[in-house]
């Protein structure tokens, strides 16, 4: 084999391995999509297979009829949007103070922010639940969203980004008589769009996928989020796997869509935090 043939052989091998790995990873998702398109006889047939012989879109309708998935989606969407928006606001404000302002106890306060990352949500779950219950906020949007409206991770992410902006920007704006808040609003935030995008995608997916808190916070079907609602499909009819899988496809779509659209930003943001942080 000459050098060129070797190179081609190596490339073929690389592609073969990549395709194999991709198939293994995506297999469960492909399988779910396959099952969701099968009629119940085919879904339960032996041996199991992935590609449906006949397309049957009826499962999606059946899934929507069995449980109010549309309603659950709306709840999840509301909760995710409220949390994402709030986190972007609170984190931008805090990150701005840590990046641009000089004030006493700055380091201490920064450590206070970071220390919240060391406290697992499961350790604060019981008092938070009791607080919400005593306020009568079970089955409300404020109950589902308020505890997540601030984020140390997001503050840290934005601060790191703000620090890369030239300090002269701040001085120049001040000389021009630009107030501090206006500086944040009309100069820093537009420049920080990539970092805000990362935070947005991350917050949205994390909130959309939340499980334990919404499980505790809702007991009324009308207020359930999709992640909790998906369980309802199983208990309705244990054997109708094709309908359950149609439900799974429906709830997977939004987060996969956000992921595909925002993947570049997410990867950039998450890795910069991990690698430099």
């Amino acid at each position, binding site marked *: 084999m000459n050098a060129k043939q070797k190179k081609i052989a190596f490339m073929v091998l690389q592609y073969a391995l990549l395709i194999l790995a991709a198939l293994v990873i995506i297999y469960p998702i492909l399988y779910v999509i396959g099952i969701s398109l099968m009629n119940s006889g085919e879904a339960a047939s032996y041996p199991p297979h992935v590609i449906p012989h006949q397309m049957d879109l009826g499962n999606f309708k059946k899934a929507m009829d069995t449980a109010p998935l549309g309603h659950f989606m709306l709840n999840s969407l509301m909760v995710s949007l409220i949390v994402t928006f709030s986190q972007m606001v609170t984190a931008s404000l805090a990150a701005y103070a840590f990046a641009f302002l000089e004030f006493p106890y*700055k380091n201490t306060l920064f450590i206070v922010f970071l220390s919240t990352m060391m406290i697992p949500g499961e350790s604060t779950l019981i008092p938070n639940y009791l607080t919400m219950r005593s306020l009568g906020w079970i089955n409300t949007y404020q109950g589902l969203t308020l505890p997540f409206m601030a984020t140390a991770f997001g503050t840290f992410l934005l601060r790191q980004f703000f620090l890369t902006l030239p300090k002269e920007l701040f001085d120049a704006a001040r000389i021009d008589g630009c107030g501090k808040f206006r500086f944040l609003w009309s100069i820093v935030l537009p420049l920080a769009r990539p970092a805000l995008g990362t935070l947005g995608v991350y917050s949205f997916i994390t909130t959309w996928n939340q499980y334990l808190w919404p499980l505790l916070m809702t007991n009324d079907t009308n207020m359930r989020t999709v992640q909790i609602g998906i369980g309802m499909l199983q208990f309705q009819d244990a054997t109708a796997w094709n309908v359950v899988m149609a439900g*799974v496809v429906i709830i997977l779509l939004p987060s996969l869509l956000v992921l595909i659209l925002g993947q570049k930003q997410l990867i950039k943001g998450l890795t910069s935090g991990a690698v430099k942080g």
Partner: protein
Amino acid sequence: MLQKKSRRELLYAALYLSPSLLIFLIFVFYPMIKTFYLSLYLTNPHGDPVVWKGIQNYAKLIASEDFRKSLVASSLFILYTVPGTIMLALILAVMANVKLRGIGIFRMIFSSTIGVSVASAATIWMFLLAPGGNGMLNHFLNSLGFSNVSWLVTTQTALPAIALMTVWMGLGFNFIIIIGGLQSLPEDVYESARIDGANGWKQFWYITVPLLSPTLFFVIVVDTINAFQAFGQFNILTQGGPDRASNVIVYSIYQEAFVNSRFGPASAQAVILFLIILVLTLIQFRIGEKKVHYQ
């Protein structure tokens, strides 16, 4: 006393910090202290402390067979998930960190599980792990000549089966972080290694792994903490069973607090969870600082 100027600065900064601080105060710091407080009492079903127990709640926990089982289940779960996820993600990242046509599609597929929620992942795997010959995993085993396994209802296999699902779910996040680390490695080190005649395998062990250690260290810490906090897959797939074999700590807290309404003993478990995660983070940072190669 702070000077007038710095006091003004502090007040001004407080304007920007207060929204976050307020949320942290109400929903992180206050409840953490309240958890400590509740852990010393027995409560009524409303969660009001009624009987002072002091450290008895803790003493009982430590002596209890069930809690020991929970600690074992959580530790095994970490052991089953963390090393496997990181090794697989590292392999995927090395494979995908090349310049090939269409590599972007592979990277997207490898990172795709980051968008899959624990509820949908658990539902999907409930199906894949179905006990009869209809379950895909059993079907594969059958075609390799093995017999069926009742994955989720057998004491020995429930935890490994949930771990398998969790590894799959964690690959996306780990892949994203590790390939980010790979891409930030300096090209010139590899260049000189190639000139010195180091082959791909040697380059991987003597250059990539050491240089990547900060990133690997980061994912070890994050994965371990995540594994300790896992809940959804247990609630959906096994409810802690069979025979408490998968009754990990967070599931045990959930049962005790929200099913049995024993908020005091549940809080004691929550405090122990907090301490474990705290110690784990501190130890790992200590070791990490010594062993990790920083540029």
